[in-house]
């Protein structure tokens, strides 16, 4: 796995192809949109999705925690698919999650799906969390030159890269020097194309998509529809 360095504001962060962001200076790992217990939320509505999404997501996260050994773990919102998601955790999954958080300082940034802090789990909850110059929030702020550099989730970006075999779609980071939009990490989280206005309008001044690959990220400039418009750099 080769994480790619990126400068956000004056800070150097690493984008990992597994879909997490590592901030070495702060010993911080950030992950967005886990949507734990999404399957059981669907089951409650009568659609019996396989009840293995939570353990799958946690197992992938546990690997990354072992690799980076962070001090802090920032959940960037929508960690649970709905407000009582945490209450529906099976005893096994709950134990796995507690195990995973052991010795860490968990930061729960609240999302639209999980507007209240998860019950019975360690950590602090914030609507928005600030670390040094960087703001961690679930829903990206509207574009503004005055805003602090931010890391946000919520939109589940994915992008389609044109290759000679036609388009290949992957979840992706979308980034410019002022903002990183995180891919959704959950096992059952789909994606929204970066060309959708909801994402495109956040990167009017340009940006790049970093598509998640097996071993590394694949970087493409955000293009205007149909034309290879290069991102404008900086200010």
């Amino acid at each position, binding site marked *: 796995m080769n994480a790619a360095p*990126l400068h956000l504001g004056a800070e150097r962060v690493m984008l990992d192809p597994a879909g997490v962001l590592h901030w070495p200076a702060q010993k911080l790992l950030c992950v967005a949109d886990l949507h734990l217990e999404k399957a059981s939320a669907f089951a409650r509505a009568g659609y019996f999705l396989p009840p293995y999404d939570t353990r799958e997501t946690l197992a992938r996260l546990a690997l990354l925690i072992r690799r980076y050994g962070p001090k802090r773990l920032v959940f960037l919102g929508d960690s649970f698919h709905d407000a009582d998601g945490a209450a529906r955790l099976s005893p096994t999954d709950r134990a796995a999650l507690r195990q995973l958080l052991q010795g860490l300082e968990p930061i729960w940034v609240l999302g639209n799906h999980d507007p209240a802090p998860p019950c019975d789990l360690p950590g602090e909850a914030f609507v928005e969390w600030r670390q040094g110059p960087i703001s961690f929030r679930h829903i990206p702020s509207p574009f503004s030159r005055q805003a602090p550099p931010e890391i946000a989730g919520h939109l589940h970006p994915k992008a389609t*890269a044109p290759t*000679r*075999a036609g388009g290949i779609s992957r979840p992706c980071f979308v980034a410019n020097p002022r903002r990183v939009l995180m891919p959704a990490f959950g096992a059952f989280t789909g994606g*929204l194309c970066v060309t959708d206005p909801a994402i495109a309008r956040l990167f009017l001044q340009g940006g790049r998509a970093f*598509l998640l690959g097996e071993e590394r990220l694949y970087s493409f400039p955000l293009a205007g529809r149909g034309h290879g418009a*290069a991102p404008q750099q900086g200010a």
Partner: protein
Amino acid sequence: MRTLPEPFAGWFAARGWQPRAHQLAVLDAVAGGEHALLVAPTGGGKTLAGFLPTLLDLNNAPREGLHTLYISPLKALAVDIARNLMAPIGDMALPIRVETRTGDTPANRRARQRAAPPHILLTTPESLTLLLSQPDAAAFFAGLGSIIIDEIHALAGTKRGDQLALCLSRIAVLAPGAKRIGLSATVAVPEALRAWLAPDAQAGSVRLITAEGGAAPVFDMQLPEGHLPWGGHMGLASMPEVYRRIEAARVTIVFVNTRAQAELSFAALWRLNEASLPIALHHGSLEIDQRRKVEAAMAAGKLRAVVATASLDLGIDWGDVDQVIQIGAPKGVARLLQRVGRANHRMDEPSRAVLVPANRFEVIECVAAVEAAAAGELDGDPPRPGGLDVLAQHVLAMACHAPFHPDELYAEVIRAAPYAALTRRDFDDVVRFVEDGGYALAAYERFRRLFRDSEGRLHIRDARVARQFRLNLGTIVETPMIKVRMRGGGTLGEVEEWFVSTLAAGDCFLFAGQVVRYERLDPAAVIVSPGGGDDPRVPVYAGSRMPLTTWLAARVRAILHDPSRWAHLPAQVQEWLKLQSLRSELPPSDGLLIETFPRGGRWFLVAYTFEGRLAHQTLGLLVTKRMERLGMGPLGYVGTDYVLAIWSAFEPTGVERLFAEDILGDEMEEWLAESSMLRRSFRNIATIAGLLEKHHPGAEKSGRQMTMNADLIYDVLRRHEPDHILLRATREEAARGLTDVARIASLLARIQGRITHRALSRVSPLAVPALIEEGREWVAGGAEDALLAEAAALVAEATDGAEEFGETLADMTDGIITRGASARPKPREARRSRFIRSAPRRAS
């Protein structure tokens, strides 16, 4: 021989008609308490034969209540039959009420029908399922005397057919006396259809009635003037000749194989249409009102031609069609004869048809099809076993109807032919799936849809379950479609969502017979305006092409191999084949010819397997897997109906290894894991079985709704519970009908020791069509990442590294930002307070 009583005898006589032998035979069978399968070509008075027993019975002994159920695969057909039945009923003043019930029937009429059923109800498999899921279904069907299943050859073997077979099994319980009458076009496998129709899955329980054949059809082949295309399937080069033939005939149906082809052919004909002949367009994606208008105009004799897809395949009466033109190869003999039967709806005169092959291989295929038709050889496979996904839907339907005991339902289900071989284990697993998902990890106890009472009967939990069932009913899984609306005007029809995602504002495309310009996407529709432009695109639709049948493939191969049979082929095709025997060799009729050659920096391997496109797609996956193992670096492949072509980074050597029988073993496992076709199967199965919410075409999406991605579910389920019933169903479906593994197995067995490898220095004449074929599949997995890497590198190269977004660029842009920021007065503290809008809270 039986004769007709009055007033029926008089009604026939007044029209100068004689009751046909097969019409009387059906009467005879039903009178004797038998079920009957009537096999007759189009125009044989088949429908009337089905209804005569009902009309006679109700005339003899008028009574209230539902007497006859008529089921057809098409809504339009039900409506058309209703119209045709009204004539004799009105003429003879019979005391019979006929009504239709389809998805289009308004709710108030449906409610009235349930309270006061008509004598004859015309419906579709979906509407029948819905009726049977109602708590009052037992009373509704109790007095049923007759069930007519039209176009049974088009239903048996499909998922809608599975659904119908299960419904029939239930009706046999509710109305044990009801007799079944199946109506079928001429098919290769009447025995299998008899078993399908039988209430106990035994062919012997159904009397087979075969109408004597009408006059043999007369075929003609039309080639374009000048150059005969190497590839392509559109057949546009022949449009001037097609137009001349339309001018010369009274009414023509121009059959094409795909909707895209329909749009292009229609546009091409209108460009030539100097006489402004009324020529219309009919395909499944056009707005329904538009289709009805075309159908009505056709029936009223106001059109000279209609360009149509399979949407017109089935038996609707189109009036006085005197010419059928088939553009593109027919792909199957039975299908060709059914289409040809649309011309000249009278059995005693020959139907006339013109075949218009689009490329060289299709010329040979057309010749083969005409030979087979003349020899009376039909193709077609027996219906495949029923799908477990359809069974899951049925189990829920039956639970909505009334509580059931699994033992009784199992006994009922295996009386339906598609499920005759269903094991109790599979059945029980399906029931468990319906109850709570049936996962090894019993996580959903509290969300169960069904619960068991003390006697072991299963009940639905509440009315919400029934509502959800109705919402997701049906076995046709639509590709997400989106409506196309003219700005300030009406809806033209619909296109697949992904096609829209490839459009940019201002792009033009051909739709509903006109060039339109894409303006914008609003939440419910694509907004277009009348457009111009030289090179409009054409929307294509997934899965719309029929594969070549085995029978026809064998005939094509036999013609190719034997120069003495080339006499019927046009000179250009003969030259092409001669050139092939000079440059390489002709594919043998039993073994396998494989060519390899370098081209454009890659290596190509072309295998002349002739097993049809579906089998070739699967074979391509298996062979490329083997090539990956052998380090040949396969990049992609394309399967046409005739050949499999693969391109790779390195020269394929020892090609016999690639077609060894054991690729069905090791590679099969891997294939099962990664196949995109398997993923598509899973998506359909999961939707039909009720795991995923059904996509409702035209339904508005609420904002940026994130739909559940079937691929993600597939991956997780495969890792955690590979033996789950839905994955078993997916593998079974993939292993039989869909991907033709049996066809591959018999091919591999046949060619062992008979593989001829020609290592050529350049492409051979016979390989050209495959290399210009669209619809390529790319090697998934590792190769996908390699492609991404290549594309990313290309972007970097093309922009001379200026786009490199590694550390260098980040530093550089960072510098810019920093300078800009430092020029402004330090807003840091103020900003923090403005952005932290609520105080941190302690979580626990």
